[in-house]
């Protein structure tokens, strides 16, 4: 009953997050539809007007004429020449913008601009405020479903390699499944399928991370003997372990460069343990078929 309540609550949170992401207002109107240019595995040269978006994967883009939509480059950057300009956004994942001054109508997104726009101190403040949000979520989940969180915490400490492997495979599966579902978007069914997948992924991440907080808290501050447990006033119980875990992982998250990697690893562990224990319920995901004779013989 309690686990159902938590599942409903977490599903509502995840659905809200995904809906907010999808429904976030866009700064620039987009010109979707026909006229899109997509190039895979080679350089692209735009020397005629494009009435849509341009996407380049594993290559560089040279823009010599007008692009009405957005430009996305996963590769070696973009160079503007002649009358080249982009009326929408330019999104770069790799490489740099050459000769781009005044030629981008929308916004320019690059990993460097996003990271660099925020000063170190501001970034730390953001991380700490997100930590507060994580703490609130962790406390609510633990209060409503402490037993399940504990089950998962025990599992991640007993089988860390299995949880990590499962987490890695699950993350890859989420990405590939999202790609496959995106094929179904023109047939409408793809949209609810993608939405459900995103909600499930967020749900798994939230629950798994809370379980990992508990595991880290127990490893760092858990009582080893009954005498130790009896002596303690504050550092005992699921709630205390989760709070300690949030503080420890949060402190590690603040370390430049290493912190985000540790947090990413923790997310993989979390997703793995959430799935390995079926959100702490320890029920099988798949029912095993057995003939009546075989069951009687057991």
């Amino acid at each position, binding site marked *: 009953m309690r686990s159902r309540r938590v599942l409903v609550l977490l599903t509502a949170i995840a659905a809200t997050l995904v809906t907010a992401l*999808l429904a*976030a207002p866009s*700064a620039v109107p*987009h010109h*979707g539809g026909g006229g899109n240019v*997509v190039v*895979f595995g080679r350089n692209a040269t735009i020397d005629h007007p494009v009435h849509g978006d341009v*996407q380049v*994967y594993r290559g560089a883009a040279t823009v010599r004429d007008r692009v009405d939509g*957005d430009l*996305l480059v996963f590769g070696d950057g973009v160079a503007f020449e002649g009358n080249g300009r982009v009326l929408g956004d330019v*999104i770069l*994942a790799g490489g740099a913008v050459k000769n781009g001054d005044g030629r981008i109508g929308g*916004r320019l*997104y690059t990993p460097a601009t*996003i990271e660099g726009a*925020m*000063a170190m*101190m*501001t970034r730390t*403040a*953001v991380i*700490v*405020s997100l930590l507060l949000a994580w*703490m609130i979520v962790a*406390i609510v989940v633990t209060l409503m479903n*402490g*037993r399940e969180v*504990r089950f998962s*915490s025990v*599992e991640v*400490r*007993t089988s860390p390699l299995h949880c990590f*492997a*499962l987490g890695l*495979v699950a993350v890859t*599966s989420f990405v*590939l*499944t999202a*790609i*496959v579902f995106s*094929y179904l*978007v023109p047939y409408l069914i793809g949209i609810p399928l993608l939405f459900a997948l995103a909600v499930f992924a967020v749900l798994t991440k939230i629950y798994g991370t809370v379980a990992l907080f508990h595991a880290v808290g127990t490893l760092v501050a858990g009582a080893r003997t*009954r005498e130790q*447990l009896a002596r303690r*006033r*504050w*550092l*005992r*119980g*699921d*709630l*205390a372990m989760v*709070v300690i875990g*949030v*503080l420890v992982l949060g402190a590690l998250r603040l370390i430049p460069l290493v912190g985000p990697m540790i947090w990413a690893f923790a997310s993989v562990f979390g997703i793995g343990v959430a*799935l*390995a224990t079926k959100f702490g319920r320890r029920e*099988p*995901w798949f029912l095993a078929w057995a003939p009546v004779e075989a069951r009687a013989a057991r």
Partner: protein
Amino acid sequence: MNDACQRYLENPEANPEHAKECAECRALFDALAISMEDRRSRLSLDELPLAPWEGAKHRPWGLVAAAAIFVVALTVVFFAVAGASPLSVLSSEMSRLEMMREIFRLASAAVRTAPLTWQVTIGVLFVVVNTILVLLLRRAPRGIDA
């Protein structure tokens, strides 16, 4: 085995006279080569390892409040030192979300126009990865009862 045997096996200490009357139950306990007195003396709860559920329900609200106040204070200090308002940071975070949404929108359209080899690779990877996922999910959890 009758009802008296059943009662004795369920709670030997409450029915000690049954062992004198019933040879079958006596033989059963003799086979275990241990008397109830020995069992009691040998079984010491303190010698057992600490179970995860022991003390788990304890709720130290003082610790929770102290941790929350600490994190809130830290956030306020960092925002004050950086000279940024939480709202401006929120809008900056929103632009990151917007970028992710843009990438997702464009990439989902690109997938459908990808070369055949890419599409076949995605299909094969989808089947292989999900098969591995199912195989990994079939393994029962190993953790002891919490």
